[in-house]
């Protein structure tokens, strides 16, 4: 059996290699992407001399590996460079926006779990029943609706027709917690509802499998009540795929949050990334890429550790 410490060290090593690869790719982006950052920043009237000087300032005249080494060195000291658009420190910009995106991500996961867990439990307890049939049809329906359409529908219904929630914008939690929650509802629903559909389908399948196991039959024979049986005996072993989905979701949520944050004007990492890509603001794009990759790597490591806690057989090498 591999020692847990050695196993963790191997995982950390692989994570560092992934991050290094992402950093090299990010630093190579200005060379690979169409669209000149100099023209985007300086405008179409920039002279060739201005463009050359600007590109030199960005390190585009240097070897990618050397530029990556310098960038990593600076990043380890907390310096992720400066935005080409407004000269702001990228570290500060990210520090302001990461909490917003994280809050949105957590809220979306809570929405998804709050819907998925009860619906999946009822569906799995009575497969083919009314709730199961409605949940199955509803899940496919949600999955078929693109995020921006769902977002616009929610805005139309709750902000325009009912006028109970704001259509767009953001209030920081520290400024006004109630307003923060009001602004959070629609983007969290837009991100969370499609995830709820995926979670429901995944958890239902896993629960059906678990409910067929002998320990469930044994618990039933001992007279354990339905609710207790589902929550205590079936849910925990069936929830491992959900943990994986949430872990993967940290990475994929950036893609969704670009759209949702732009739609609802939420000042998170998504809108920062969208603006940076449109303006070819490479220092920002590079930092967002590496920070998001670090988020995914960290989430994967956390999921690994959680697996061991949720299912001790994994820690003991039985599964």
């Amino acid at each position, binding site marked *: 059996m591999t020692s847990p410490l050695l196993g963790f060290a191997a995982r950390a090593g692989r994570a560092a290699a992934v991050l290094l690869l992402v950093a090299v790719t990010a630093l190579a982006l200005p060379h690979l992407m*169409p*669209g*000149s*950052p100099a*023209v*985007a*920043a*300086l*405008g*179409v*009237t*920039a*002279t060739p001399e*201005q463009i050359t000087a600007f590109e030199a300032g960005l390190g585009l005249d240097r070897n990618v590996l050397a530029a990556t080494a310098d960038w990593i060195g600076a990043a380890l000291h907390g310096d992720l460079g400066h935005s080409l*658009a*407004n*000269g*702001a420190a990228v570290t500060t910009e990210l520090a*302001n926006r990461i909490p917003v995106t994280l809050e949105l991500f957590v809220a979306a996961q809570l929405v998804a779990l709050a819907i998925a867990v009860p619906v999946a439990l009822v569906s799995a307890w009575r497969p083919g029943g009314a709730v199961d049939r409605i949940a199955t049809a509803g899940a496919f329906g949600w999955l078929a609706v693109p995020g*921006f359409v769902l*977002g*616009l529908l929610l*805005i*139309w219904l709750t*902000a*325009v027709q009912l*006028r109970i929630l*704001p*259509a*767009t*914008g*953001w209030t920081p939690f520290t400024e006004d917690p109630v307003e923060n929650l009001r602004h959070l509802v629609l983007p969290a629903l837009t991100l969370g509802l499609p995830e709820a559909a995926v979670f429901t389908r995944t958890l239902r399948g896993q629960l059906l499998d678990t409910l067929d196991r002998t320990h469930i039959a044994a618990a039933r024979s001992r007279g354990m009540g339905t609710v207790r049986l589902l929550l205590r005996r079936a849910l925990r072993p069936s929830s491992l795929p959900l943990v994986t989905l949430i872990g993967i979701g940290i990475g994929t949520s950036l893609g969704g949050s670009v759209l949702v944050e*732009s*739609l*609802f*004007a939420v*000042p998170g990492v998504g*809108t*920062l990334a*969208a*603006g940076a*890509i*449109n*303006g*070819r603001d490479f220092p920002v794009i590079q930092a967002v890429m590496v920070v998001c990759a670090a988020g995914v790597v960290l989430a994967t490591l956390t999921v690994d550790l959680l697996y061991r806690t949720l299912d001790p057989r994994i820690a003991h090498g039985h599964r």
Partner: protein
Amino acid sequence: MKRHRQALSAAALATVVALGASACSASDDAVAGGAAQGGDGPAVDGGTLKVGLDRPFTRLDPADGTLTQMPVMILANALYDPLMVNDDNGAVKPYLAKSFTPNGDATVWTLQLREGVTFSDGKPLDGQAVVDHVKRLAKPETKCTCAVDAGTIGAMAVNGPTEVAFTLKSPNAAFPSLFTRSLGYVSEAPVGDAPAIGSGPYTVESVQPGVSVTVTRNPAYWGARAHADKVVYRVLPDSDSRYQSLRSGDADVAWVETPAQLKQAAGDGLRTATGPSSTSTILFNTKVAPFDDPRVRQAVQYAIDRDSVEKIAYLGQGRVSDGPIGSASAYRAASTYPARDVAKARALLAEAGHPDLSFEFLADSRPEGQQRATVIQQLLGEAGIRMTIKPLDPAGTATALTQRQFQVMDFITSMFGDTDTALNSLFPAEGPYNFTGYRNPAVDRAIADGRAALDPAKRAAAYNEASKAILADAPMLFLTENQAGFAASAKVGGLPDLSKRTVVNLSPATLWVKR
């Protein structure tokens, strides 16, 4: 005699400019546009006006190109006063300036400033401040696109507290029009990341770059007091949710240019203040085959039905464009734009040796851009021309334009709102925005003659001569003039009539929120 006529013309123009100043005090809606649309009742002071911006601003400094684009000028006008403003039908009139008068050959222009104007920090906005501002924006490190315009100035002299003389490198009868945006928004040099201080009706209270900015009334404003106590600007980049924010009351005023939204605004209880402020065109790369042959360009010109483009892509919200001189321009003459003729298009292609013409069309990646490209694709297909559409994002568009990495390209611009600037920038062989690589010495000469002519009639004649040649050579095709501007909720008062504005420009100071 010639000199005498020029002197008379100069005097006439000076009178017009000076009259403009007297007719437009700072207390009225000079920046905003014409008279209010009416039906608003008495103006209401106080409250907060919420404005939705369609794009993130980067720096609060007139040197920043974003701040002086039409949709964001509603923010610039809060903090800075322009020396000159665009009026109806493409005319330019003084605002912060009292007058702007030329010498006999339009090589020296004398600016007279209003007296008693101060920046929001109390420092005087005088002749020296104007010179310092122009010098700052001319420096390459400021990265202002207006540096090209500033480069046409040979020397500046401060002749007293309120007078500046500009000596130009070459005659320019339309020189004052260069002072309607960045060069005209006189500001103090910013310190660090702080906003550049201006003389506008509001000052910055708080700012979150790229997200929002809140401005409060400038207590020491030299002009009329702004109506709203505060204006909160939020960046709402998605056009659909921005529009829905107007309907829900999360925004009071916002930029709108999507044809479907303009069409349904009234039905949704919104009011609009729009003008023919953008033009849809097509650019050819005239430096490479097959579009280095005018016959091929003309064939494409004959194959496109501008009415169809306008009706399908713009839902009848605009009008067809007849050339580089816009329909609202004072220089406009009868159209010489060729009517659609598919047979002639085929004949020209056969004559040029390209009977099966096919090419790649770079199009705006937004839905409207793709729809427009699809309409063009179908129209060209009727003439046997095969066009493939390649979507481009904004940064890709800028690179394709400047490095001329295109065959044919979609180009939507607000430049034709100012005929002088458009003609002088886009078509001369050495023009700063000559993206097509077009070269016609006769056109260069006509444009230069127009630029130097102080007599509006002579300038119009010269510009129309250039326009005629441009339409014949077809380096650029003109499709539609499009409506764009602001939509406001019913509780906003003071919305001006901008229907004759080729440059849509709105000041938040003139708007109020009804209670």
